[in-house]
């Protein structure tokens, strides 16, 4: 009889190991990666069933579902990483319908050669984010692609939630006269990520605003069930979100530049890079369209929540056949806040 302990498998060397193709091949190496890394970190009753799917109880109410793919460079940035970002992003997309998010699914595409230590950091960060938000990751999948065919790690998360009865929040419900409310400062996430890019790397203590907004949304929906529209201004920033809602609702909008909160460091970084904070991404902010009569009540509730402390009334919905979003500049003029054309590129001089 050999001296090998029955059932013993040498654990993954997380500290020095790297992802290789066998981790996606469906064999023992993959089972081990799933067991030791993902299942251990996300630990919950559904994953413990060890099935290819999670069997869930039927929730009461209308179900919403949303999915979001996450690619970010660098993977780790001040204030967060791709892991917590992928949890917050989908929770927020679900919550923008006014829903309570219930469960998440996560898909990973790993690049051969990716350090296991980094993967562990990312998975731990996801697990923490999911736990803090009270939204478990109940099922998932992993694939490995050859070196050079990915960018370290891509994560897709899908979320399911339920909308409370009586709530009807949709991007096509903005009406002339409604007020536009923003939950806090803009541009923090985009500029924090940019400050870490290899070619830029500027010194700043700016951190990403990545955060799950469903708690804030629940408080808002409870106080003002008549909320018309909610959206989180991620890619493309506030300007893009307002344009989306304006065209969906076939209305115009006018916002006040002076009313839009921007951190000083964000303003400064945008200034020297020639960028406009209105187009820079956020990961923990939302825009709410609300009937004028409810605006004060909504602001009060938002400001009482830690993620809405700097909530501000930034403008109003107007009647406009062209669906333009316009801004009264701090300088006293007026201009269009247009859709972004392509990527925001720095100007030359």
């Amino acid at each position, binding site marked *: 009889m050999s001296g090998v302990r029955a059932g013993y498998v040498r654990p993954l060397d997380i500290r020095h190991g790297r992802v290789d193709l066998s981790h996606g091949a469906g064999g023992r190496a993959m089972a081990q990666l799933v067991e030791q890394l993902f299942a251990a970190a996300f630990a919950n009753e559904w994953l413990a069933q060890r099935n290819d799917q999670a069997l869930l109880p039927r929730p009461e109410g209308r179900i919403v579902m949303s999915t979001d793919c996450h690619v970010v460079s660098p993977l780790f940035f001040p204030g967060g990483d791709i892991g917590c970002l992928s949890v917050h992003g989908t929770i927020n997309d679900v919550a923008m319908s006014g829903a309570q998010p219930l469960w998440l699914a996560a898909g990973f595409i790993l690049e051969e050669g990716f350090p296991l230590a980094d993967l562990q950091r990312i998975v731990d960060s996801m697990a923490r984010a999911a736990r803090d938000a009270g939204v478990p990751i109940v099922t998932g999948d992993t694939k490995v692609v050859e070196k050079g065919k990915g960018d370290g790690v891509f994560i897709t998360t899908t979320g399911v939630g339920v909308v409370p009865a009586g709530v009807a929040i949709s991007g096509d419900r903005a009406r*002339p*006269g409604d007020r536009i409310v923003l939950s806090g400062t803009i541009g923090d996430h985009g500029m924090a990520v940019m400050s870490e890019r290899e*070619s*830029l790397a500027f010194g700043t203590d700016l951190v990403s605003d990545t955060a799950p907004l469903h708690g804030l949304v629940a408080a808002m929906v409870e106080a003002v069930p008549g909320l018309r529209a909610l959206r989180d201004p991620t890619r493309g920033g506030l300007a893009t979100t307002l344009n989306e809602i304006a065209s969906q609702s076939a209305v*115009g909008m*006018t916002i006040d530049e*002076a009313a839009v909160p921007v951190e*000083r460091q964000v*303003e*400064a970084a945008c*200034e020297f*890079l020639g960028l*406009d904070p209105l187009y820079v991404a956020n990961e923990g902010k939302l825009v709410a369209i609300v009937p*004028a009569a409810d605006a004060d009540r909504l602001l009060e509730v938002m400001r009482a929540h830690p993620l809405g402390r700097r909530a501000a009334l930034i403008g*109003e*919905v*107007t*009647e*406009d*056949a*062209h669906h*333009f979003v*316009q801004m009264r*500049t*701090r*300088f*006293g*003029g*007026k*201009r*269009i806040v*247009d859709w972004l*054309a*392509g990527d925001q*590129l*720095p*100007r*030359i*001089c």
Partner: protein
Amino acid sequence: MKYIDEFRDGELALGIAAAIAAEADPGRSYNLMEFCGGHTHAISRYGVTDLLPPAVRMIHGPGCPVCVLPIGRIDLAIRLALDQGVIVASYGDCLRVPASDNLSLLKAKARGGDVRMVYSPADALKIAAANPEREVVFLAIGFETTTPPTALVIKEAARAEVTNFSVLCNHVLTPAAITNILESPEVRRLGTLPLDGFIGPAHVSTVIGSRPYEFFAEEYAKPVVIAGFEPLDVMQAILMLVRQINDGRAEVENEFTRAVTRDGNLKAQALVSDVFELRRSFEWRGLGMVPYSALRIREAYGAFDAERRFRLETRSVADNKACECGAILRGVKHPRDCKVFGTVCTPESPIGSCMVSSEGACAAYYSYGRFREIPIVAGAPA
């Protein structure tokens, strides 16, 4: 933000606006050209036009670096990337400029060309150091502002004896372009482009100083006020121009004294003349061939000149027939006079170069000002 907010103060703006309105004679017109794209951008972004009386009309000049870069020169860079496997590095704005065969540097990248966006020529040199087995070409563009950094990086490459780095030089000169506009038949003989004064460049003038403009003021009897790129700078410069025109003066005045002197930055000028020499002639998109309007790399630094290194020949390529960029760049036409503006030609798929950069007259007008032309349905409760 300190040193920035002071120059964007709405209250002060109202004060200057009131002075302009009080002093501008409603019976005459003040046609003022802001040469620089930086001014065009500031005017559009802050809605400066809203604060001006009808008698004052701003004409956007050709000072947008990517707008005046001719198609043939971008074609050279695209061919280097696609046919010769060269890493082409350039400023972000440059990458979307439409060139021949429905390509741009960004589209060339999508077709497998190695095109990289950099924030400074020094980054291009770093790419060369990191890829010793590859040729790296920096597509250098811009006016006098961006020329010294290019000169510096060429000197640095020479000092470090870098063998895989070169520069495709497209640096152009502001005074030559202003002369070209003033000498154009529209201004001189036909009078179809009334020009009463210039807002002089901000950053360019920090390098070349205010002296080069004295010639225009004297020879063409046009007042010039050099102004910073902040909206209050622009407002103040407009007021100063209105006063000069009212007084019948044509002088060079400097609103931007916090950065511009009469002689400019002598050190930068010496650096530039060490590395570059005048080209006899250079094509500008919109203006055509302009004599002594651009720089080339001197023989002594010939090893770093991509034109010599790859034996490049520039072919002149005509703009799309419907595109009015040429006339718009010279201030003869307004973006709304162009048939393709806002329909076929948009910031998403620019036909002409004025639609590419937010400094370009068309893109600035499209993105920030086109609502002025279309009546907004009133009735929204405030």
